[in-house]
C-alpha cells in the first residue's frame, strides 16, 4: 500500500505561497496513491516554467529537461523503459509554444504516457508575457497594447487527431482533477489533461472569475462523439468545460510493434548482439547492396 506520505519530498518550494500549482501537485499525489504507484515506478518529465518545477516537489524519478522538450525526452524514456509510468508535467508555454511541434507529433505517435499541461494563460516564470493561450486583448508585459493574435486551441487539435483521452481539469478542484488523472494514467495511449491553473501573481482575473466560468460536463455529454467534442472546445462563449472532453477510438500505441517483436522489457536489459552475429551480418551486408 502506498500512502500520500510516500511522495513527500523535502525540497523547498519555489512557487509563490498560495499558487494553484500546489493543488495540482496534491491531485497528482492523490492519483498516484489511488493507482498504488510506488515512487520508483514513476517517471515525471518536465521542461522549464513554473509548472515544470513540479517533479522536484514529490518523490519520484524525474527528468527536468529543456524548455519545450519534455515530450521528446518522455518518448525516449518511455521506449527505453516501458515498465515506468511516464508522465509529462508542463506549462502551456512549454508545451504549446517552444514545444508545440512535439506535441502535435506526439498526437500522431500515441505513446502510452500522460501529459498534464498547467494552463495559466501566460509565461509565469519569465514574468508575465503572453503565451499561446492568452486571449486576444489581454494586456501582458510584452503586449501592453493587448494581445493581438488568437490563442491556440490544443484540445481541438488533439480531438481532431483522435487522441484517446483528452480532459480538462481545474486547479480549484483537486478531487475532480485527481479522478481525471487516474483515468488518464489508466488509459492506454496518449492521455492529455489540460489544467486551468490560475496564477495569483501575474493573473488578471480573480479566482471568482474562474469559478464563475468553469463548469463540469454533465452525464449527458458523450465524450466519444468527436463532432460534439470539437464543438465543445471550439465554442467561443465564456464558459470553460471541465471533465473528460474526448475519448478517441482505440488505436496502436507508440512502439507497440517493437515491443511485440523485439522486447517489452527495458532496453538496458537486452542481451548485446553477439560478435558472431555482427560478423555474419557484415559478410551479408554488401550483397543486398543499395539501400532498399
Amino acid at each position, binding site marked *: 500500500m502506498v500512502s500520500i506520505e510516500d511522495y513527500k519530498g523535502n525540497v523547498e518550494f519555489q512557487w509563490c505561497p498560495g499558487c494553484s500549482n500546489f493543488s495540482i501537485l496534491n491531485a497528482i499525489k492523490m492519483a498516484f496513491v489511488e493507482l498504488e504507484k510506488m515512487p520508483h515506478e514513476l517517471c515525471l518529465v518536465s521542461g522549464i516554467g513554473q509548472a515544470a518545477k513540479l517533479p522536484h516537489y514529490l518523490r519520484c524519478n524525474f527528468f527536468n529537461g529543456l524548455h519545450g522538450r519534455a515530450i521528446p525526452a518522455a*518518448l525516449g524514456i518511455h521506449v527505453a523503459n516501458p515498465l515506468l509510468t511516464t508522465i509529462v508535467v508542463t506549462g502551456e508555454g512549454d508545451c504549446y509554444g517552444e514545444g508545440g511541434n512535439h506535441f502535435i*507529433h506526439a498526437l500522431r505517435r500515441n505513446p502510452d504516457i500522460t501529459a498534464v499541461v498547467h494552463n495559466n494563460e501566460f509565461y509565469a516564470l519569465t514574468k508575465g508575457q503572453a503565451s499561446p493561450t492568452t486571449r486576444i486583448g489581454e494586456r501582458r508585459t510584452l503586449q501592453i497594447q493587448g494581445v493581438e493574435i488568437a490563442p491556440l486551441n490544443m484540445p481541438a487539435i488533439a480531438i481532431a487527431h483522435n487522441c484517446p483521452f483528452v480532459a480538462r481539469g481545474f486547479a480549484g478542484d483537486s478531487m475532480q482533477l485527481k479522478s481525471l488523472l487516474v483515468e488518464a494514467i489508466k488509459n492506454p495511449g496518449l492521455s492529455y489533461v489540460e489544467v486551468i491553473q490560475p496564477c495569483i501573481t501575474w493573473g488578471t482575473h480573480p479566482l471568482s472569475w474562474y469559478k464563475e466560468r468553469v463548469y463540469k460536463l454533465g452525464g449527458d455529454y458523450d465524450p466519444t462523439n468527436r463532432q460534439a467534442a470539437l464543438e465543445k472546445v471550439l465554442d467561443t462563449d465564456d464558459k470553460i468545460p471541465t471533465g473528460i472532453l474526448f475519448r478517441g477510438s482505440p488505436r496502436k500505441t507508440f512502439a507497440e510493434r517493437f515491443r511485440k517483436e523485439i522486447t517489452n522489457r527495458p*532496453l538496458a536489459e537486452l542481451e548485446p548482439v553477439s560478435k558472431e552475429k555482427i560478423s555474419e551480418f557484415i559478410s551479408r551486408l554488401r550483397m543486398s547492396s543499395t539501400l532498399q
Partner: protein
Amino acid sequence: MEDINIVIAGSAGEGVQTVGDVLVETIAVHGYSVFAWQEFESRIRGGQNSYSIRISDKPVNAPRMKADILLALNEGACNKYEPLIKQDGILIAQKKTRERMIAIAFSEIAQRELGNRIYINTMVIGALVAAVGMELEVLNHVLTRKFAKKGDKVVSDNLVAAGKGYTLAREGCRGICPWLLPKLDTHYTPIAGKEALSTAAALAGCRFMAAYPMSPSTDIITILSQNEKELGVFTEQAEDEIAAVNMAIGASFAGARAMTATSGGGFALMVEAISLAGMTETPLVIILAQRPGPATGLPTRTAQGDLLFAINAGHGEFPKLVLAPADADDIFKKIMRAFNLADKYQIPVIVLTDQFLLDSIFSVQDINLSQLGPTYYLTDPFKIQDYKRYLVTDNGVSPRLYPGQATHLVTADSDEHDSHGHITEDLSGTVIRMVEKRLAKYRALKGEINPPEEADIEGADKILVGWGSSRNAILEGIELLREDDIRVGMIHFTELWPLPEYRFPESKQYWIVENNTTAQLGRLLRSEYGITIAGVINRYDGLPLTAGYIRRNFNG
C-alpha cells in the same frame, strides 16, 4: 600490381549506383581489394554523378581522381568526366568519340537484342568486367545471387545481358586494355562507412536511435531500421532534429545506449540538447556527418567544415568528447570508444564524419571484432544505500542508475542542481562544487585520449597534419611527394577533443591539410600546443582530399 581506377558516370536514375555496387561485389569476390567513392548532385533524376572504383591487390582505401577507365552512361557524363581519363586510359561509351575507347551501343542493343533497356546496366557491368580482365563466371555468380529472389527468368536474362556486354567489350579491348585480374585467393570485405558505422553502433550496445533525415547521415538510421530484427536497435524518425536528440537523451537517461545522427544544419539544432546532456550527465552519441555549408550548402558533397563548431558546441561549459574516424576500419574502433566513453564519463560524444567517409566503400581484410565490444558502467543498485545521482566524487563521475532499475530514485535537472538532482541557488557552495565536479571529468577524460598517429616522422622535416577521413589520402600523398623527392611525414588526429598530452616533434615545419577553408585544425593546435603553422593545403569545392591534390598543392 598497379591499382586500376574505374569511374562510372551518368545521371541520377540511370543506374550508376547499381552498376557500381555490383562491380564492387564482383571485384571482392575476385579476391581484390576495392575502394569506391561517389559524388552526386542533390537531385533525384538528372545531373551528372560518378562512382569511382579503385582495384588493387592490397588495400588502398583512398580516392584517386584520374581514371584508367571512364564508363559514361550518357553524352553529358562523357563531356563532364572525360578530363579525368589518364593519358593511357580508355573511355567506354555508347558512341565512338575518341581514339582510346570502347564504343558499345548499350541501349540500342539492350532494346533490340534483349528486348528491354533495363538490361543496359547489366551489360555495362559485363563490359567493365571484360575491360579490366576479370572473369565473367564470377560476375555471373554475383548476378545469380543478386537476382535469385526475382526468379530464374530474371537471373538468366541478366546473365545473357552480362555476357553480351562482356563479349562486346572483349572485342573492343584489343590493344587498349592492358589489365588482367586473375581470380585471387585473398579475401577482402568491402564495407561502406555508413555500414560500418551502423553495425558498430549495434555491436557497441546501441539500443535506441532517433534521427531526422538529412544527407549524408540518413543511411545510418535507415540501415539500423531496415535490420531491426537482427540488430535490435529501436529506431524512430523524429519530427525534427530537436526531437531526435531529446528522445535519444531521454532513452539514455532511461538506460538505453542511444544515438542520433545528422549533418551540420541539424546538428546546429541539437546544440542546446548537447548542453543538456552535459548538465544532466547523460551519455549521448551524436554522429555529425559533415557536408559543405554554410546553411544548406551543398547537401550531397563532402567537407570538414564543422570541427571548431563541434568542439565548442553548447552554451555553458561541460566536458565532451569529439572523435573523427579515419576510415571504415577506424569507424569500428571509434564508435566503440564513443559509446563506452560516453557511458564511462556520462558525457555527450560527437563523432565527426562526412559524406566522403560514409558513402565510400573500404576494403578490410579482416574486421577484427575480438577487441571490440561494449563495456557498461551502470552502477549496481543493490550496493547503494542512500542514492545520490550527482554525488560529488574525485573524478567527477557519479554512480549512474536508470529509473526503475531499483527503488532508488533517479533524477536529472537541466538547472544547476544539488547531488540529488534538485534545483539549487546555493551559489558559493553547491554551485561551485557541481561546476567543478563536471569539469573534473575533463582531466580524467584527457588521460584516455590517444595521441595522434605519426607516420614517416623520422627524417622528414615537413609534416602534414590532418584529421579524420583524410588520413588515407594524406598517407598516399606522402608517397607521391616522395616520388617528387620531397620527404614529408604525417601527424594525424582522430581524437580531437579534449586533445591529448602530446609533444609535437621539434624543429619541423607543420602543414595543415583540411577539407575546409579556414584551417580549423590549425587554429586548434596553435591554441593547445602552441605550434607554428608553415602552410595550409585546403580543399573546399565539395570533393574529398586526394593524394594528387595534396601533391599539387604542397609548395613547402
